[in-house]
């Protein structure tokens, strides 16, 4: 219920903002035509412009619907097609990011020298704006002879998503307390056993919490990675086309498609987490 209230408020604010921002154009047109418009006429005119400054919600919804259901999913105009391209890059980046994050976390927890040498660089890596870095990764992977456009996108996506996984996993792998570690020592457990039987399972709640952040970061990375690839395919490319050709509706529709995709992915991660928690004996 509170969710719907918030949505309602957002829609109201959006409509008023659309009227307010699109009104100058309406008055401008009227003045050129030498006619005067009433307030009511003006409001009506702000709702259906072809290239509004700020499209009204129903326009975006219609454009979104057109993009999703209005054409064959293989069409270059289909948001399903572009969304699928972005989703693939997100997925590869996500998997790569998880792998990298977990691997680094394990080595950091295991070897103190890794903590001193790797951790500062991991933090620095996240302070570099990804929009500055993305074109370089694209150019470099091209120069390295990688033909597949998926590769640089996945790298950029992984670049953003490995960090939350790394930070959470370091914390999670270190979460067992001294007593639990002493206990394993009384059984003369090896380092490997300590890792597999205690540290890794103990880190799982931290891991899943980080996945929700990581999946969203992966999507952002994939979209940003699509911007400098020549705007050929993917939701990021759609946004770029919309902005370059002055088609705000395309931009907004792509934006919402990305948001819906992100919501779906987070939901999916949540379901996987619930399943894993149930398997690990957490209270229902």
């Amino acid at each position, binding site marked *: 219920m509170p969710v719907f209230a918030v949505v309602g408020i957002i829609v109201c604010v959006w409509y008023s903002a659309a009227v307010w921002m699109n009104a100058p154009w309406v008055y401008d047109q009227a003045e050129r035509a030498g006619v005067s418009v009433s307030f009511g006429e003006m409001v009506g005119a702000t709702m259906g412009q072809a290239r509004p400054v700020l499209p009204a919600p129903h326009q975006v919804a219609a454009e979104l619907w057109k993009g999703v259901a209005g054409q064959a999913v293989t069409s270059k105009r289909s948001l399903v097609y572009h969304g699928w391209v972005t989703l693939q890059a997100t997925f590869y980046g996500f998997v790569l990011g998880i792998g990298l994050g977990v691997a680094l976390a394990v080595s950091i927890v295991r070897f103190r020298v890794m903590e001193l040498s790797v951790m500062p660089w991991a933090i620095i890596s996240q302070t570099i704006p990804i929009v500055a870095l993305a074109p370089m990764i694209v150019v470099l992977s091209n120069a390295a002879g990688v033909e597949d456009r998926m590769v640089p996108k996945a790298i950029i996506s992984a670049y953003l998503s490995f960090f939350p996984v790394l930070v959470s996993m370091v914390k999670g792998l270190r979460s067992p307390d001294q007593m639990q570690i002493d206990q394993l020592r009384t059984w003369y457990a090896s380092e490997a056993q300590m890792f597999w039987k205690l540290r890794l399972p103990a880190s*799982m709640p931290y891991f899943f919490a980080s996945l929700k952040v990581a999946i969203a970061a992966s999507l952002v990375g994939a979209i940003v990675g699509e911007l400098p690839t020549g705007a050929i395919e993917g939701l990021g490319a759609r946004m770029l086309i919309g902005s370059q050709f002055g088609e705000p509706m395309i931009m907004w529709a792509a934006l919402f498609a990305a948001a819906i995709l992100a919501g779906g992915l987070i939901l999916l991660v949540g379901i996987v987490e619930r399943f894993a928690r149930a398997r*690990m004996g957490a209270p229902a």
Partner: protein
Amino acid sequence: MKDMLNIAGPVVEASGVDLVFQTNDGPVQALKDVNLLIGKGEFVSFIGPSGCGKTTFLRCVAALETPTGGTLMVNGMTAEAARKARAYGYVFQAAGLYPWRTISGNIRLPLEIMGFSRAEQDERVARVLELVELGGFGNKYPWQLSGGMQQRASIARALAFDADILLMDEPFGALDEIVRDRLNEEVLRLWNRTQKTILFVTHSIPEAVYLSTKIVVMSPRPGRITDVIDSPLPRERPLDIRDSREFIEIAHRVREGLRAGHGDGV
């Protein structure tokens, strides 16, 4: 290893054990000249105020701490060798069960680590669950059990691999007195049935007197032994033995020992 036990005399033999911790505020003498002999099948309680080193001594026996002086032999070998030979089961103050494992899974943990076969794991888990009267709770998760039951499960876990020595560090300190009384009875019964040597840290005088064949009274700063009392109470001990004259006399002596230890510390 069992044969060695029969030949070698004492289970724990401490002579002149010192332990100095280096802290930021300078060295702290946690144990000073601790001498103690513990024979097979004894039930030894360590009692004293906090900071007297009773837990530290137990940790030394377990080779979780290394004494800085003196010698400490467990089962006729060094404490470290005894740990590697898995000579003891250690019960901590908190049950420390893994929330992601069932009770059976938790008891199975040391068996997995020690490489018992799957069939033997099952057999041992079933046996120790019965021993601590938790049969039927094997498939429950720790959060589904009360604190007392969790601690029983942790005792079962310490018994599962048949170590001859059981080290218990205030195992019932966090439980209420009614549960504690019951668990004390159960521990005594367990001790009678399994013939294990038990080292038991507590700060409760009645608990120490009720359980022990030998009570080691310790005092702080530096941690040292002030009195060792051999209990004349019989091995079979109903709860109402605590109203007997002998019981009260021993308790009195323990209290005197604790007071004396405190007196010269101030």
